[in-house]
């Protein structure tokens, strides 16, 4: 009996790679079954489908199909009219909008100015995680069903751009009130797809909304599924289980790109990876130490290794795709001798002992291990502390750390989003500035550029602010990650969005 069991187990073990190979070879250029359903696989489940209850990427990727915003941010981050047909700048703090007519929510209600007013009032009332986007907004004045005025408390340069952020999607009062507490699982928008079902941790199913104001979408259904492991997502695509996968792992991308049955997309994203110093703590309160560490690290080589080549080494805080990114910053380069000299000057000729904190992200851990070795070359001994993400964010917000690894996505594509939270002294801790580094001149420039509607003035202010940040080195600038996505070759019309929430309106299986 036992022997039989062992033999059959062995047989199964031996047969399974063969079977897997067989399956992989059955690749054809046409989707075998259920062509109308687009199978999209991403790394994590959504948290809520109420745009005002969350501000995370997986949720935004689903909501993007269900909801629409007043302005529309194209894949290249251009701002175009969305639900608002047109707008007029009355003064730096007053905007007159005209809504598109004949737009219907999935529950049959027509979109009017009252929905817009309700949306922004609710956002403030329930203190939505993304309410800061429209913090400048004082009130929405309804003129008639299709015309309304937005009045700001102070001039705010990126205001119009922020109205294209998925978190500012327009919702319908009736639908929200009808669903009550469960609205996050019964979303109603004006977008090309309507919600069907959500099985937590497994899948979210959307169905084409035939009454969509720009005409029905190309696919009948979309099924979003969640697979956390990079490699498993890649396998799902190879076997044809998925039509589209988001966030391909750097290790898998080469293999997928070489496969004729697949199409891969490598695009410059909006994400900055950095290692921050706790500038309130010794010895990182000393500029010479921060610069010395910048010089002691071979960031270019480390980036090449950590990202397998799917990123470019950073020289400043903003990815080149972000508006107002200063691309003239020289970068620190790799100069351990100069680093040692600076350390000696700062009184640390024999180095010191410190720690690098990171969450359990393999790329960040790889950076940390490389830096541990490179810092050892200039006499700095580092311990690497690996934590889970939630306690990691909490404890770095409290300022318990020495050095830490994080990333930041400038979702709106504007320098304000990419700099203000990270470098303004009013944003210490959880708001985003975990280095606790502040500079009066940078504060002034960021405030100025935030409030100015004048393009040239903003550009100059951001350029100078980035220069100061570079010189003051509260970070080691690490990398701008490439966005890696892949689809089956039979998928048509997929254009990756720079901010990661890809629109699927025109995407279909051929």
């Amino acid at each position, binding site marked *: 009996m036992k022997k039989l069991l062992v033999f059959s187990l062995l047989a199964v073990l031996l047969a399974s790679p063969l079977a897997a190979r067989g399956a992989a070879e059955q690749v054809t250029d046409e989707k075998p079954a259920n062509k109308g359903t687009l199978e999209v696989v991403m790394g994590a489940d959504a948290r809520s489908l109420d745009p005002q209850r969350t501000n995370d990427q997986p949720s935004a990727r689903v909501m993007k199909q269900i909801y629409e915003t007043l302005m529309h941010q194209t894949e290249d981050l251009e701002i175009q009219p969305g639900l608002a047909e047109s707008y007029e700048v009355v003064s730096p703090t007053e905007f007159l909008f005209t809504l598109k007519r004949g737009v219907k929510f999935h529950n049959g209600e027509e979109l009017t100015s009252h929905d817009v007013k309700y949306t922004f009032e609710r956002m403030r009332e329930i203190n939505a995680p993304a309410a800061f986007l429209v913090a400048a907004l004082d009130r929405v004045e309804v003129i008639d069903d299709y015309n309304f005025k937005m009045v700001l408390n102070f001039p705010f340069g990126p205001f119009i751009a922020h109205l294209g952020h998925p978190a500012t999607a327009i919702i319908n009062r009736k639908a929200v009130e009808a669903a009550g507490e469960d609205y996050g699982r019964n979303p109603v928008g004006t977008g090309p797809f309507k919600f069907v079902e959500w099985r937590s941790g497994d899948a979210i199913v959307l169905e084409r909304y035939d009454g969509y104001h720009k005409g029905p979408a190309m696919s009948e259904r979309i099924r979003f599924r969640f697979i956390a492991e*990079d*490699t498993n997502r*890649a396998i799902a695509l190879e076997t044809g289980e998925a039509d589209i996968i988001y966030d391909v*792992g750097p*290790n*898998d991308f*080469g*293999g997928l790109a070489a496969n004729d049955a697949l199409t891969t997309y490598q695009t410059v994203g909006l994400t900055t990876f950095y290692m921050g110093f706790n500038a309130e703590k010794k010895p990182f309160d000393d500029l010479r130490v921060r610069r010395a560490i910048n010089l002691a690290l*071979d960031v270019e*080589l*480390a980036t*090449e*290794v950590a990202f397998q080549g799917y990123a470019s080494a950073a020289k400043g805080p903003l990815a080149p795709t972000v508006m107002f990114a200063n691309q003239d910053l020289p970068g620190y380069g790799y100069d351990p001798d100069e680093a040692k000299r600076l350390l000696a000057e700062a009184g640390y000729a024999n180095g010191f002992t410190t720690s690098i904190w990171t969450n*359990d992200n*393999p790329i960040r*851990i*790889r950076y*940390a*291990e*490389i830096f*541990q*070795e490179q810092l050892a070359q200039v006499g700095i001994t580092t*311990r*690497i*502390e*690996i934590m*889970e993400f939630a*306690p990691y964010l909490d404890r770095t917000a409290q300022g318990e750390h020495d050095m830490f690894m994080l990333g930041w996505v400038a979702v709106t594509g504007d320098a304000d989003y990419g700099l203000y939270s990270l470098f303004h002294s009013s944003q210490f801790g959880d708001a985003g500035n975990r280095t606790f580094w502040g500079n009066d001149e940078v504060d002034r420039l960021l405030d100025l550029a935030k409030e100015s509607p004048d393009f040239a003035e903003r550009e100059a202010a951001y350029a100078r602010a980035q220069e100061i940040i570079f010189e003051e080195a509260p970070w080691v600038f690490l990398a701008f990650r490439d966005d890696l996505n892949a689809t089956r070759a039979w998928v048509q019309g997929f254009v990756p969005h720079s901010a990661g929430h890809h629109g699927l309106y025109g995407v279909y299986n051929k």
Partner: protein
Amino acid sequence: MDKDKEKDQQPPHPEAGYSIGGASEQAGVTNGIQAKAPKQRGQWAEVWHRLKKNRMAMFGLTVIVIIILTAIFADVAAPYSYRTQNLRRIAESPSRDHWLGTDELGRDIFSRIIYGTRISLQVGFVAVSISVIAGGFLGAVSGYYGGKLDNIIMRLMDVLLAIPAILLAIAIVSAFGGGLVNVMIAVGISSIPIYARIVKASVISIKEQEFIEAARAVGAKDFRIIFKHVLPNAMAPIIVQGTIGVAIAILSAAGLSFIGLGIQPPTPEWGAMLSGGRMFIRTAPHIATFPGIAIMITIFALNLLGDGLRDALDPRLKQ
């Protein structure tokens, strides 16, 4: 033979599976009050004799001795340092320079596995020592005294047992942070109840025997009786469980490191190495495979030895 009958009348206890048992030994032990030293040596010699006949156990023992020697002489045996990176030669397949290839940061995998024996053995033995000492003490006390104290201790152990060991270890490491020492403590604490139960079971069966009564009659204190007479005779199941426990501890530590909660880099812990290579499983499978094989061989050898010891210590099981 009377002894055996007495034993059979005891309620069947799952953990009382082993005990030095056997009529001949019972006699030896009872005589042991007068002529303890020579007789006990004889008993262990017999165990060794029986163990030697078990080929699989001897194979396990040989492997473990080799691993221990590797750990002691790691500095001599390893061709490279475990932490030197060569970022221009990452994820290389096995070659003459690097017998088992290089890992995701260009470190020599062979050297890291050799240094890793130190970490794994340390974790295994220290964690088991913690659980044997704490579990043995609690088990002995509750088995010897019984009553309310026994009830309190055993219910506490039940609570601990109700939480899966790995989950308990994760909770402890999350609360106190990672690092070698904390991992050893976490893994050790999580298996205390197993030893407490085993020791309690054997203590109960031993404390009713005549030689304990005799010791009590000559006025020996409880403390002395427990440590001089009860525990030495309850060693067999502890040794067996301890051998297997080392294997479990190594696996738990590797598991904790795999999920990123264990030992901090660049310590060449096998589980952490596996985890680091996981991302490369399709492009450079050797990075994850070799540490995995190292874990497997070690655990396999420990389990073979553990099984062999159980058979050797309790010949009745063989019949």
